[in-house]
C-alpha cells in the first residue's frame, strides 16, 4: 500500500508538472538509418530517404531531432525496390524498444517516390496520434533519462565542449566526407543552358564563362558573382550542340560553336572582342571540340559528318584556323563508339596510349592502341538530354519518326596527372529518346593497369547536370545545373556550382 501511495504521488506530481508539455510539447522523433535493397547507389539512397523522411515528419506536434539520445521515439525504415515497384516501410519505437506505430507505402515507379515519402510520413503520424500516451510511459521515459547521480546544473557548452556526434546520427551533406571541399554557387541564371565553356582568367581574377542554350550564347564573367557581359543569338532553325573555347596565338579567345541546321553541320566561330561577341566565320562543315587529349595542352579538334547514317564521318583530326579556313592534320582513328565528343586518351604507367570512350549505352570503355577493348565499366556514366536530329525517312515507317535522334554525351576529360574525369546523370525517366535526368555527379578515375579505379566522385546534384568542366589549373570543378527546364514560353534557368577538389 505504501508503494502504491508513493507511486500515485509520483504519478500525480509528474502529471502536474508535465500536464502542459504533454499536451502542447512536440514529440521528438529521430529518423535512423534506412535499409535500402534493390538499387545501385545505396549510400546516396539511404541518405536521401533519411533526409526526406525526417523533413516530412517534422511539423505540428512532431520534431525530427538529430540523435536518438534526444528523441522520444526512433523511426527506422526500409526501402525495397523490385523492378520498378518499390515499397517503403517505417517502424516507430520508443527509446525503450516498444513498438508504437508501423506504416508502409508502395509505388509503381520512381516518379512516385517523393510523394510516397510524404504519404508515409502522414500515415505514420496518424498512427502515432492513435497511440495513447500513458503517463506511466512518460514517467518511465523521464526516469530513464534521470541520471543515477545528481549532477550540477549544466552551463551552456562552448563549441569546443560539444561532444562529437556519433557517425550516422546526423544527416548532413555528403560533400563533407567526400573529396571536394568548399565551393561557390551562382545565383539563378536565366536560360536553361545545355553547354558550358571556360575561357581565360582575367587580370582581376575573374573567369570568362560561356553558356549556350539552343540558339543563344551567353558570355559571363565569374568573379564573386556571375556577370552577364554579352549575348549572341543564332538564326532559326539552327541548334547549338557544342561550345568550345581556345586562345589563338595572339591572345584572342575563339569560341567554336558547333551548329546543326536541318541535320547538316553549319558551325560558327566567334571571338571575344572586349565586352562583345563577334562572329568571325559561319557555315563550317565540322564538329568542333577544344580539349586536352591525354592531359596535354588544349587543342582544337574537328570531325566531319557523312551521308546516310554516317553521323560522324572519318577520323578525328587536329584542326588549326587561319582566318575562316580550317585545316586538318594529325588524324586519330576512333575505336568502336568513338567520336569527337565521346573519346579521350590517357597514358598508362607503361607509356601505352589508351583511349577511353563512352558507348551509346553509356558504359565507359577503355581500348588499347590497336583499338581493342581492354575494359568496360559495369556502371553507366555520361547521359545528356542534348541531341540533334537527322532525316531518317527510310525508317519512318518503323520508328514513326522522320528523324534519327543523336544524343550528345558527357565529355571525358583527362587531367595532366592522367586522371580520367567523366560526368554522370541519373534519372527516373530515361526511356529511348525520352530523357529526363534528375541528378548529376562527376567521377574521377585512375588507370591501375587493368581497370579504371574510382578516386572520387561528387555528391549528386539535385538537378540535371547538362555539362561540367574540371579546371585542372585551379583544381576546381564547375558543374552546370538545370534548375528549371525551358517551357512553352520560358527560357528556363541554370545555376553553376564550383567545387574545390583536393
Amino acid at each position, binding site marked *: 500500500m505504501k508503494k502504491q501511495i508513493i507511486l500515485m504521488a509520483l504519478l500525480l506530481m509528474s502529471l502536474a508538472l508535465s500536464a502542459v508539455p504533454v499536451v502542447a510539447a512536440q514529440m521528438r522523433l529521430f529518423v535512423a538509418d534506412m535499409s535500402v535493397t534493390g538499387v545501385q547507389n545505396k549510400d546516396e539512397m539511404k541518405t536521401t530517404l533519411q533526409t526526406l523522411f525526417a523533413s516530412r515528419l517534422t511539423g505540428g506536434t512532431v520534431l525530427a531531432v538529430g540523435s536518438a539520445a534526444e528523441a522520444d521515439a526512433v523511426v527506422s525504415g526500409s526501402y525495397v525496390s523490385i523492378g520498378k515497384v518499390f515499397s517503403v516501410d517505417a517502424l516507430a519505437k520508443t527509446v525503450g524498444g516498444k513498438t508504437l506505430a508501423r506504416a508502409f507505402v508502395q509505388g509503381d515507379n520512381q516518379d512516385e517516390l517523393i510523394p510516397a515519402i510524404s504519404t508515409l510520413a502522414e500515415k505514420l503520424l496518424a498512427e502515432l496520434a492513435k497511440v495513447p500516451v500513458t503517463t506511466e510511459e512518460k514517467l518511465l521515459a523521464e526516469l530513464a533519462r534521470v541520471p543515477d547521480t545528481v549532477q550540477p546544473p549544466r552551463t551552456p557548452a562552448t563549441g569546443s565542449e560539444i561532444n562529437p556526434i556519433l557517425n550516422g546520427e546526423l544527416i548532413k551533406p555528403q560533400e563533407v566526407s567526400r573529396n571536394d571541399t568548399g565551393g561557390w554557387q551562382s545565383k539563378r541564371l536565366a536560360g536553361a543552358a545545355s553547354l558550358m565553356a571556360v575561357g581565360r582568367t582575367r587580370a582581376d581574377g575573374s573567369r570568362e564563362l560561356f553558356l549556350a542554350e539552343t540558339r543563344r550564347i551567353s558570355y559571363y564573367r565569374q568573379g564573386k558573382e556571375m556577370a552577364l557581359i554579352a549575348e549572341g543569338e543564332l538564326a532559326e*532553325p539552327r541548334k547549338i550542340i557544342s561550345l568550345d573555347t581556345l586562345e589563338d596565338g595572339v591572345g584572342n579567345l575563339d569560341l567554336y560553336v558547333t551548329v546543326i541546321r*536541318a541535320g547538316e553541320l553549319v558551325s560558327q566561330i566567334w571571338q571575344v572582342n572586349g565586352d562583345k561577341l563577334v562572329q568571325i566565320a559561319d557555315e563550317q562543315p565540322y564538329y568542333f571540340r577544344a580539349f586536352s587529349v591525354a592531359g596535354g595542352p588544349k587543342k582544337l579538334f574537328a570531325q566531319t559528318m557523312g551521308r546516310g547514317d554516317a553521323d560522324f564521318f572519318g577520323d578525328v583530326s587536329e584542326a588549326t584556323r587561319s582566318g575562316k579556313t580550317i585545316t586538318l592534320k594529325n588524324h586519330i582513328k576512333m575505336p568502336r563508339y568513338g567520336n569527337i565528343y565521346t573519346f579521350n586518351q590517357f597514358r598508362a604507367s607503361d607509356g601505352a596510349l589508351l583511349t577511353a570512350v563512352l558507348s551509346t*549505352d553509356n558504359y565507359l570503355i577503355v581500348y588499347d592502341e590497336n583499338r581493342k577493348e581492354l575494359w568496360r565499366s559495369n556502371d553507366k556514366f555520361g547521359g545528356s538530354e542534348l541531341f540533334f536530329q537527322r532525316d531518317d525517312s527510310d525508317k519512318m515507317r518503323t520508328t514513326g519518326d522522320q528523324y534519327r535522334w543523336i544524343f550528345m554525351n558527357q565529355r571525358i576529360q583527362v587531367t595532366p596527372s592522367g586522371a580520367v574525369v567523366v560526368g554522370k546523370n541519373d534519372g527516373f525517366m530515361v526511356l529511348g529518346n525520352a530523357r529526363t535526368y534528375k541528378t548529376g555527379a562527376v567521377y574521377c578515375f585512375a588507370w591501375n593497369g587493368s581497370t579504371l579505379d574510382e578516386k572520387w566522385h561528387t555528391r549528386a546534384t539535385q538537378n540535371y547536370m547538362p555539362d561540367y568542366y574540371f579546371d585542372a589549373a585551379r583544381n576546381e570543378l564547375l558543374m552546370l545545373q538545370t534548375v528549371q527546364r525551358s517551357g512553352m514560353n520560358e527560357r528556363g534557368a541554370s545555376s553553376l556550382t564550383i567545387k574545390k577538389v583536393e
Partner: protein
Amino acid sequence: MNLKKTVAIAAAAGALAAVSVPAMAFDNEFHGMYRSFGYLTNALSGAGGFGLGTENAAGKKTASDSADKYFEQRARIQYIAKASDDLKLVTHFELDTKFGGSQSSGKYVPGAFTTTATTNPSANGDGGGLDTDKVSLETKNVYLDFNCPLTGTNVKIGAQPYSDSMFGLFGNFDAAGVVLSKKFNALSASYGYFTVGSSSTNGIGYDATGKGSNNYTQDFNTFDVKYALSKDLTLGASYYLLLDKVGTSTTGTGSNHTLGLNGAGKFGPLSFTAALGYQTGKSNTQTQTTSALSTTGGYTSLTTDATSAYAVALATKTAVGPGNLLLSGLYLTGDENGTGKNKSWQPIGNGVTYFMPSNMWLLVRNGATINSSTAVGGSSDITRGGRGITGLFAGYEGTADKLFYNGNIGWAQVAKARVSATTTAASKDLGYEFNATVGYKLYSNLTASATAAYLVLGDAYGKSTGLILPGGIHDASNPYLTNIQLNYTF
C-alpha cells in the same frame, strides 16, 4: 509445410529472381510511339478505304460526298533485351484503334468480318468500342540482332523491317528472313534472304509428290553495297532477286530481277538523294493476295513475257531563308495494256511502297499516316495497277522556335493510261494537291499539329466520261482532309 510458409518461400524466391535481373547485365531498352489523328474528310473512312463522292445535278452534295469525322490512333512499343552490345533481341508491337471501334472492313478487324458481325458492336476488333478490351495487339517485329564474334558480321534473323535503297519504291516492309551486313571502312555491304510468300495449297509440309513447302515459296534475296567516296558523296548499288515458286505446277518459276543505283550527296546548301532502278525477268501471275508481285499488273502471261521496267527518283533539300526548300520527283514506267511485254514497274507487293519525300496526303500517301494510310484511288499501290506514275512535288518547311510548319504542292499522273479493246482511257492526270501543316513542339518528344490538304482531282479519276482509273467515279468531287495530330515518340 504449411501454406503460409510455401507462399512466403515462393514470394522470397520471386523477389530474389526479380532483384537478380540487373545482375544478369541485361539492358532493357524501350522505344515506341503514340500518334492520334482527328480527321475531318470526305475521302478517308478510318477503315483503310479512300472514297470519292459526287455532287448531284444541282451541284449539291450527295451522301457519297459527305464529310466524315473520326479519331484514330496507333501505339507502338519496342522492347529490346540487350545482353551486350553484340547481342540483343528486338521485339516490336503495334496497337491500332479507331475511336468507337472498327467499321465493317479495314485492318482493325481480325479474321473474316461477316455481314452479321457488322451489325453487332461486339464484333469490333480494335478495342475502340465500349469497354475497349478487345484483342488488338499486332506483332510487328521479332528478331535477334547479333554480331558474329569471328567475322564481326552483323546478323539479323527473324521478322524484321527492311527497306530498299530506292526510297521504298520497290518495297519498304516487314518480313521474316536473315540479313547479314558488314562494314569495310568506307564500304558497307549487306545480303538478305526473306521468305515473303508461300502457296496457299502447298505452304506446309509435303505435296502429293513429296516436294516440300520450300518448293512453293517466294524467296526474296537482297544485295546492297554502299561506298562513301567522301563525307559529301555516297554511292550505292543494289540487286533484288525474287524467286517466285508459288505457281510452279502450272506456270513455272518466276524470277524478278531489280537492279538499282543510288546516291546521296551534298553540294553547298543542297543535299540530295537519288535512285535509279531497272527490272527484268519473268513474274508469275498470282492469286494469293498476300503474295509478292500479286497486284501490280493484272497480267495473264507474265511467265512467258519478260519484264522491262524503270524507276527514277530524286529528292532534294536546300537551305533557303529560315527553312528548307523541298523538291522531289519520281517516274515509274507503266504498261498500257497489260499484255505482251511487261513495262510496268513492279513493287514487291501492294501496300509496301512509299515515296516519303513527296510530302503529299491525298495524291501519294503520307509517311506520317497510320491506319488511314492510303491515297486517291483507294490503293497504297503507287503504280495504280501497273500504270506507273510521273510525279513532281515541291514544298517548304521551317521552324520558328517550337513552332514548325510546311506547305507543299504536288502533281502526278499515271505514266501510261490503260486502254481496253472497247474504251479509251479518260486521262492520265491524277491531279494537283495542295497541303499545309502547322505544329508546335509541346515537349521535345511531343508535337501537336494541324494539317489541311486538298486535291484538285484529275480526269483519270473523275472525268464524266471515258474509262477512269479503278477507285474513281465519274464526276467525282475533289477530295480533301483536315486533321489534328498528336505525336509522341521515344
